[in-house]
């Protein structure tokens, strides 16, 4: 029996939720249940994608309530791609976690699986939410799961980082909610499309835009509000770092993107997009500089995230500019999100392997390790290639799109920044890859015979390879993105 495409909308949220509950109830079998759930969720997302490709944008009114009180799930090209990105990274992280939480304490394992699947469910729900309040709820749930996962390691630094992350999450969500409240007070609807069709440039919308943008900026860790990210991402367990950096920050950015394309579209010709772009520039420079300074690999990778997130904001002015090819700009930004998700998760998982095998992740420890941990170092190097945006990689295609639009729009400052960011990235990636290739005698290695479980090594490598291979699939991805996206950027609503 072929299910109606709407059903998949519900299933991609419900399935991971069910998995979370099951793993919580049967902690002994959590890895097995988690793995199976991961595969099933992945399958469901693929099925949804196929359904969306076939029947264009899809909408499900849960329980038949309908707006304004009911919950509407909406899948268009953008959300489908986000779901797919989450599913791919999620599957790899699931595989990785099986090895990572294998023999270590049962306690961590017992909490990791339900929290992770719960996070996945809220992530999927977030991408499918059709109204601004549901976005708040899913965002908050996402934060809570992420915070709990951060604290999972239980070390003081991790708990402190989690606490800070918690406060950031709450403050950000509350600002967002405040913005929603203003919006509702002014317009009286919550559905995004409905808001988009009636929103105008009035003072309450201004206030709302400021609050929402500021709150989401902090949750997306846009410079200079990124202060919470490096400690949280660096101190969490490796699979958690990977999903925080690759996915969770994308959640809040997704909301930002979606709202600016619709509800706040009337504010597109103000200075606001330029402020975002300027902060993006700051992020690229500052994040890269910090990445060049960090003594440990995970911190380095975390600061790399700070830098890379800057790229997402860089071209917002063009995205909001009627004169530019907005569709192409959006393609570039989305492609960048996806490329970054693959590369960054691969980098964090490799860093996790190094930490696992060597007992620490200091850069000095990996001297000469390319011989001993070839898969891991290769994974990191490949991920690095995508982060630096060297061809042929997804990062390269993304940067190509961004660069193309920047040049087309005559934004030469942005061209310079994009380029400089790439070179700086090369600098910090080489800080890891270079020493790994150094040749030293066995007795000078940090650990003579490092051991990494196969599932960990391969899931990192798999994601890294994907970060390269996705460079060849641009046409398909962008075809998917085009579904229903006319409404977003065409201003025809």
């Amino acid at each position: 029996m072929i299910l109606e495409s709407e059903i998949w909308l519900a299933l991609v949220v419900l399935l991971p939720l069910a998995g979370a509950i099951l793993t919580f109830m049967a902690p002994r079998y959590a890895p097995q249940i988690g793995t199976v759930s991961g595969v099933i969720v992945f399958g469901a997302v693929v099925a949804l994608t196929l359904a969306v490709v076939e029947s264009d944008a899809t909408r499900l009114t849960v329980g038949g309530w309908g707006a304004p009180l009911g919950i509407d799930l909406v899948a268009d090209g953008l959300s489908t791609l986000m779901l797919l990105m989450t599913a791919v990274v999620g599957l790899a992280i699931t595989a990785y976690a099986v090895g990572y939480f294998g023999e270590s304490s049962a306690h961590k394992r017992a909490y990791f699986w339900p929290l992770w699947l719960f996070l996945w469910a809220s992530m999927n729900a977030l991408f499918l939410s059709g109204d601004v309040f549901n976005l708040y709820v899913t965002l908050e749930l996402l934060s809570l799961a992420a915070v709990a996962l951060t604290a999972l390691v239980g070390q003081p630094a991790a708990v402190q980082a989690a606490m800070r992350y918690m406060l950031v999450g709450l403050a950000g969500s509350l600002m967002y909610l405040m913005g929603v409240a203003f919006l509702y007070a002014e317009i009286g609807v919550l559905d995004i499309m409905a808001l988009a069709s009636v929103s105008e440039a009035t003072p309450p919308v201004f206030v709302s835009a400021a609050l929402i943008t500021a709150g989401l900026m902090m949750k997306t860790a846009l410079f200079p509000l990124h202060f919470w990210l490096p400690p949280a991402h660096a101190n969490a367990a490796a699979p958690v770092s990977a999903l925080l950096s690759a996915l969770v920050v994308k959640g809040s950015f997704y909301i930002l993107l979606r709202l600016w394309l619709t509800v706040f579209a009337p504010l597109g010709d103000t200075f606001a997009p330029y402020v975002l772009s300027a902060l993006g520039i700051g992020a690229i420079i500052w994040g890269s500089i910090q990445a060049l300074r960090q003594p440990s690999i995970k911190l380095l990778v975390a600061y790399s995230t700070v830098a890379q997130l800057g790229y997402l904001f860089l071209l917002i002015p063009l995205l909001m500019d009627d004169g530019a090819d907005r569709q192409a700009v959006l393609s570039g930004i989305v492609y960048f999100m996806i490329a970054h998700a693959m590369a960054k998760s691969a980098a964090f998982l490799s860093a996790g392997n190094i930490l696992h095998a060597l007992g620490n992740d200091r850069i000095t420890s990996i001297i000469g390790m390319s011989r001993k941990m070839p898969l891991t170092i290769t994974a990191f190097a490949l991920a690095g290639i995508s982060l630096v945006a060297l061809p042929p990689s997804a990062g390269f295609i993304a940067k190509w799109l961004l660069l193309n639009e920047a040049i087309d729009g005559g934004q030469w400052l942005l061209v310079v920044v994009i380029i400089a960011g790439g070179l700086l990235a090369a600098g910090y990636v080489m800080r890891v890859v270079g020493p790994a290739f150094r040749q030293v005698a066995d007795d000078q290695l940090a650990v003579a015979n490092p051991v990494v479980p196969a599932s960990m090594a391969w899931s990192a490598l798999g994601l890294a390879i994907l970060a390269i291979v996705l460079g060849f699939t641009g046409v398909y991805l962008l075809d998917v993105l085009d579904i229903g996206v006319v409404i977003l950027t065409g201003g025809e609503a």
Partner: protein
Amino acid sequence: MIDLDTGTFYMLVGTVLFGIGFYGLIAYPHLLRKILAMNIMGIGVFMIFIAAAYGSGEGDPDPVPHALVITGIVVAVCATGLALSLAVQVQALTGSPKLDADKE
């Protein structure tokens, strides 16, 4: 006296509460204070929703914000719970109810 209608008044109060909460969040290093400040912020937001439900005061109040506020309160309670447990852990692990960077 400035003549304020009820809706606008509550909206202002909500905004002020949000501001106070925000100040509390950033000004006091003690985690418990921060969590409480967060709750005050939340209450401020809810207040605005209620004010929005009130609208101009004529006709029936809009039911939607009420539903939202209830949902919001549930979420806030969950969050507060998690935050408190983390704060306890911080205290237990570091011996201080403050984050490192906030200690002067």
